[in-house]
């Protein structure tokens, strides 16, 4: 029911896991599905709430936090990514190099930072070939894209996440998972969804380099300093993979995945629910 439920093809992944027939129209989830990792209630800061409409969050920690902020009802479903990893068989291919996600702004936001310095840091740190994955805004900005290409990096974009039910891309996460499973490492200059995704996809994580900043960025819920302190173990060029995996499982709720039947009930994807929605 919220357009953000369909970002990155999240609703499509959940529908596939639940055994819903493929459809060009994304299935309507009765509630708000968390679409990115954050340290607040799981939802985007500009998210409007209607009382009584459930939130579906990724982790137990996010549920506790959302509850303390008065968000009810709130259910832990786990991240769509965790379901995708679960249902997509891993290829036998040998992993190589690093997939690197420079911090990006979202629609209408602008990142301020020194890309050249970041490129130098990546070169100094990464032992193998580097694939830089840009957000679609930066990917379309020729200046930014060429800088990374000139550095000898392979530059890719997973696609456009979609918005307001237009230009939806049900294959977004599939492409991201396929790319991540080709790489041995996943890195970024900020701890973000892509790092947790990469860890769950089997990559060794690293978070280093100038974190850059958004114009007029506000540190909500303790912001960057809190992320640095609370997940200190995930920061650095070399990170303990065991601790990283435990953190990713926690944050993506990979140990709390629901069964298709349970999800269908919560999302009102049962026959009864669809009739009620109609």
């Amino acid at each position, binding site marked *: 029911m919220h357009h953000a439920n369909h970002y990155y093809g999240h609703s499509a992944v959940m529908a596939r896991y639940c055994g819903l027939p493929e459809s060009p129209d994304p299935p309507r989830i009765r509630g708000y599905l968390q679409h990115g990792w954050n340290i607040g209630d799981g939802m985007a800061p500009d998210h409007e709430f209607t009382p009584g409409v459930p939130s579906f969050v990724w982790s137990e920690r996010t549920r506790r936090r959302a509850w*303390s902020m008065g968000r009810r009802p709130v259910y832990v479903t786990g991240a769509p990514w965790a379901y995708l990893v679960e249902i997509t068989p891993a290829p036998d291919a040998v992993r190589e190099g690093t997939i690197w996600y420079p911090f990006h702004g979202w629609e209408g936001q602008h990142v301020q930072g020194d890309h050249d310095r970041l490129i130098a840091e990546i070169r100094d740190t990464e032992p193998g070939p580097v694939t830089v994955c840009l957000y679609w805004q930066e990917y379309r900005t020729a200046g930014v894209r060429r800088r990374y290409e000139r550095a000898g990096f392979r530059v890719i974009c997973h696609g456009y996440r979609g918005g307001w039910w237009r230009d939806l891309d049900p294959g977004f996460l599939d492409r991201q998972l396929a790319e991540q499973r080709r790489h041995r490492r996943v890195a970024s200059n900020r701890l973000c969804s892509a790092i947790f995704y990469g860890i769950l996809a089997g990559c060794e994580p690293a978070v280093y380099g100038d974190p850059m900043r958004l114009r007029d960025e506000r540190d909500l819920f303790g912001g960057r300093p*809190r992320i640095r302190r609370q997940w200190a173990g995930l920061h650095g060029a070399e990170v303990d993979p065991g601790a990283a995996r435990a953190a990713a499982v926690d944050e993506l709720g990979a140990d709390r995945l629901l069964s298709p039947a349970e999800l269908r009930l919560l999302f009102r994807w049962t026959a009864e629910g669809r009739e009620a929605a109609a």
Partner: protein
Amino acid sequence: MTALLLGGEMPHWSDGEPAGGPVLRRLAASARGHTLIVGPHEPELIDAVPARQITVLVRGVPDAETLATRYAGRPGVEVCCGSLAKLAAVPAYDTVIALDGLDRAGSTETEDLTWAAGLALLLAVLRPGGRLLLGCANPAGLHRLYAAAAEPGDADWAAPAGDDPTRPVGLDDLRERLRAAGLTPERGYAAHPSPRNPAVLVTDAALADPELAGLLTSALRRAGRPSGPLLADPRPLAPALLRHRLASALAPAWFVAATRPGHPPTPLPDVLLAPAADNPKPAPSATSDDPKPTSSSTPDNPKPTSFATADNPKPAPSATPDEPGTPSARAGHEPGTPSALWRTARGWLPDGADEPLPTGRCLHDVLLSAARRGNLPEMRALLTAWQSGDAAGVDADAILVTGDGGLYPLAAPAGPDAALSRFAGALHDENLADRWPAGLPAAMTGRDPDPVPRPAPETFRELSAAHDRLARELSEARAQIEWYEQSAATMRADLSRAHRVIAVLRATTPGRAATAVLGGVRGGKRLARTVLTRLRSTA
């Protein structure tokens, strides 16, 4: 000063209802050396800690910022913010205060902290020879047993305390856990009526002593109700709780002071009672025959017991505890200081007093017992003795009836009419109104009844009782209306019959003659009136 963020802090969170109040402040005031205060505590409690070096740990960032601002000018106070689990496990503190308990020491960011794990974390930072002041709410306390249904609040993100199998199940168990951890429990208290701001702290020894039962009944009756919506007012249960030895098992919370070997003895009293800070001062003219109540006190807005009056058991009716020369002032009490009671070889000695408290029963309960038995002569004798004596203005639940029948006041007078009216209200609350109508106690003492409007009940049981009473009164009123209607119908029938008899009588010869005479008289009257009117108009 800025708060030190330890990790696990909650940027958006502020804890309501911090632990505090005068009796907990009194415990906190016994702290010595470098003191750690864990969990939300009211600032006045932190102020009461006499230590030079104090570290306060709270989980909500707004709370930490408020404390940091408050203590910005006080060197030696450090404010930390985060989860207890993030506190460095270094034995750095001489005193650890966690009077709010361990339930609010964790955060959304860390795993639920079991009670045992929380205690281990507190003990890990306590120095050898250190002292722990710990509170522990009782999930089976009266405040919970009598709690009305409530939606889970924002603070209920974790499993409820009652689900924690590591939690102590009683005061004995709590002491045993501390002993097992190498500490020596100095004092263990049962706390009533609210776990975070209790008005009564009492040790097992005090609870078990029948000589103190009257005073403790008075204290529990006057301690107020637990906060929040309740199914029933627990105060009428006070004497039964004491008699059945349940006042500790069903206490809303327990508090302990425990020390590591090597700690110098720090004596604490057996009983601590919140001061009668909200005691209204009676009007200067308040005497036993003052017709106007001088107190706004009602059974739902009670006053804590204050005693320490042993050197003069019968204060003048107009005296208040804060006035110079009154017994409590002579006993060295500052306003707002809780009353303390110590067990001595001579008996129970209030703080600063020379003589122990007398033993006796609480007058309120003696009166109620007589009322329940319907013993009117005994009631009259008790009421008359109370209302004709110096304690006339003191509430019945703040008076001890000693073995020789004397009355020993435990609180300052509120005014005779107010005290009597409050007792009449209690008769009503205890469902004795049928046998003891509201004005009867006043009438029994030779006074004109001055009925005070009853406040609307706030608890479900009392509301249900009021509903049942009103339903009965309505049913009775309907029966009375029916009876009056039947009476009116009978009288109407009699009247109709009388009219018919008159009509029949008129038809007889003597009747007609009488009617003609009456008609002639009426005609003469009319003629005379007409003549007079004409004469007046021509004159």
